[in-house]
Every structure is written in structure tokens, then in C-alpha cells.
């Protein structure tokens, strides 16, 4: 078992330092790059907090939809093939709900400020 602080606490501390102490002192293109870097750290923090639970429910839905077992990658590959072949479509019970939930869970990590995402949460 690794000791404290947690990875989340470490990354958050670095991101907060960059945001409050360094960002105000940097100008020009490097300021833009720094903002991208801070965004990346924030994304990692969100993924550490959210991905495990989201992946578990995604896998459960995929197993139900496909009636098969496998890794998340294998299950997503199988679903993709079935959509491509037309074997499943938006009329397949559970498919629209599954795609929506999976996508919302991705946005919660990737871009929680994206306007379409915020609209769909209302």
C-alpha cells in the first residue's frame, strides 16, 4: 500500500499552485500553454475521482446489451461492430440510454464546462 498523500491530493496541490502563483506571472503564448497544462492536471484529478465507478457501470450495461463478457475494450469493440453492421440501432432497448450515459460520463471527466453537456444535465 502506497502512503498518503493520495495521487489526487498531490496533483491538485500542484495545479492549485500553478493556477494561483504562477499563472498570473506568465504572459503570451506560454500563458496559454500553462492554462492547457493546468486543464490537463484538472482532467486527471477528475478521472481519478470518477472513472472507476463510471467504467464499472459502463461494463455492466455493455454485458447486459451484448449478452457477453470481456474487458471494456473488447465490449466496446463488439458493440461498435454490431452498430456498424446494423445488428443493433437506436431502436434496440437500452442502446440510446447506454450511449448517453457513457458519453455524459466521459464529458464529466473531459470537459464538464462544455455547453452541450451542461444543457443535458439540466
Amino acid at each position, binding site marked *: 500500500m502506497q502512503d498518503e498523500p493520495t495521487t489526487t491530493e498531490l496533483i491538485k496541490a500542484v495545479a492549485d499552485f500553478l493556477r494561483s502563483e504562477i499563472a498570473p506571472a506568465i504572459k503570451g503564448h506560454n500563458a496559454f*500553454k500553462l492554462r*492547457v497544462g493546468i486543464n490537463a492536471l484538472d482532467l486527471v484529478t477528475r478521472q481519478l475521482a470518477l472513472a472507476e465507478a463510471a467504467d464499472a457501470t459502463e461494463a455492466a450495461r455493455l454485458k447486459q446489451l451484448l449478452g457477453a463478457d470481456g474487458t471494456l475494450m473488447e465490449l466496446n469493440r463488439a*458493440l461498435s461492430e454490431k452498430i*456498424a453492421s446494423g445488428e443493433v440501432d437506436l431502436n434496440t432497448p437500452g442502446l440510446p440510454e447506454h450511449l448517453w450515459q457513457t458519453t455524459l460520463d466521459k*464529458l464529466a471527466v473531459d470537459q464538464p464546462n462544455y*455547453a*452541450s453537456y451542461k444543457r443535458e444535465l439540466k
Partner: protein
Amino acid sequence: MIEAELGRCVASFYPGANSVTGAAKLSGGASQETWTFDIVHPDGNVGAILRRAPPGYGAAPGRAAGLDAEATLMQLAHDAGLPSPKVMHVLTPDDGLGRGFIMARIEGETIARKILRDEEFATARPLLARQLGRVIAGIHGLPRDKLPQLRSMTATKEIEDLAREYHSFGWPRPVFELALRWLRDHDPGPSSEVTLVHGDFRHGNLIIGPDGVRAVLDWELAHFGDPMEDLGWICVNSWRFGEIDKPVGGFGTREDLFAGYAEAGRKADPDRVMFWEVMGTLRWGVMCCGMMQRFRAGPDHSMERAMIGRRASETEIDLLRLLAPRG
């Protein structure tokens, strides 16, 4: 230093000028660069832009129209009275600057967030969609016999290109599969009219002033195809920058865009435009994934490229909003 070569170059085409000042690179990948500089002249300096492939870079890769074609298209647009900078000089081997061209610099803003939020553009915003409709119609109406050699695209070919590129990443995305399936099922077939298509008509490639659109830039993706492609591309949600209820670039309505298009004597086909909006949304998503691949492969191992890979999910939610809207 590039200023020495540019100085010799401007002397060859600009009477009274023999040097330049303030050269600065605005953007550049490995094969294409954009520079800003001032031509020094006794009557006052003249702002100019160099767009070039540096020496050693030959033919344009993949989909690019090529810099010679870009120069021809910009000059044709300028001659037709469309907002397009005057092309001052097409580079020759003697210039020692590679391939490309020099054009007049047009002042204004290209950054979407400023155009959509700053007070300076408040009067322009409600006018832009209609104005851009007229400009796109003008581009689609450029005289065919004067146009350079360009690739031809159809909806069917575009779907297959996107499918091939997406599958090359080896990363399953059920929402992209759904979009590809929808596009194949709704492919409207060849357009009854094939015209010049700008191919990248959106924020970033439009110089906007308080008076409206001043220039259309970046003709790299120009081709022959369905004119409705340009109208669909500018409606893609990724170019609304948060103003999601204003489909045209976050500033206007489709109705205004189509009205402007009609004022210039052309007719929009809303169903085809919607088809191309779905295609464009998927295309931007595939481009995001492609940038992530290039981040991995190098040489551009930048955070920016890596993070763009995490924007593909934005296009997934937009595709679901288009194809499987909830309640």
C-alpha cells in the same frame, strides 16, 4: 534571418521597397508557416503576410489544395469583390523562400471568443450570419473556368474517408459508429450542382471587424463538391464556442445564413445542410483523435495536441444531440 530574403523578394515586385521589418511567425507546423511583416516604403509601411512551405517541403500532403492553388483562389475571390486579401506575389524559386505567396495583411479579429463576447463586435454579431451567407454564395459562384485543379469530393467519398481514418486509430467509439451508420443511411447522393467548396469556412479562418467580415482565409481544404457542405460546416456546434442556441458560429441563425445565401442568388437545401452538419461534427471528432495520434507519434509532442484528443467526446455528445435527442 528571413527578413533579408523577404527584403530581396519585395524589391522584386513592390516598386520603391527594398526591405521589410517586424517579421514574426504567427503559426507553423512542419510543412506550412504563416509570417507577418511590414514592407518598408517611403510612403509608409505596408502590412503583409507570407504563407509558405519552407524550402525542402514539396507537394502538399493529402487533402491540401496546395499553396499555388490557394493563391489563385484568394486572388479570384478578391477580384470578385469578396472579402479576401489581395495577393501581392507568388513565390518563385529565385526568392529562396520556398513555395507560397505574399498577401496584404488585413486587420481584425479571428479569435472566436473575442468575436462572440467583446463589446467591439456587438453591432457586427447580429449581421454576420446573413453576411456570411452572401460571401459563401459568392465563393460557390466563382467562375469555374478560372479555378485551379482541385480534388473532387462527394458525400459518399467523405463518409468512406472518415470511416477509414477513424478505424485506423484502432480505438472503438460506438457513437462514431452510430454516426457513420446514420450518414450511410442518409447519404443524399451526388449534389445536382457541383461548385467550388471552401472546405474550412468557420471561426479562425474569418477575419472579423466591428463592421463585419473582412476576409476569408485558409483555402487549404478547397475542393469541388456539394456547396451545402460549407453551410453545414459553419453550423457545427464545435464552432459555436458555448453559444449553442445560435447555430451559425455562435452568432446567428440558419434562417439568416440561408437568407443571405438567397440574396446572392443561390438556394440553400436545409436537409442537405443538416446532413453536412452531422458529417462535420463527426469530422471534427475524427480530427481531434488524429491530433492525439500525432502527439503520440511525434514530432509535435505537445500538451495542446494531447488535450485535443480529449475533446473528441464533445463531438460525441453533439452527435447524440443531433441523432438521438432525449425527450
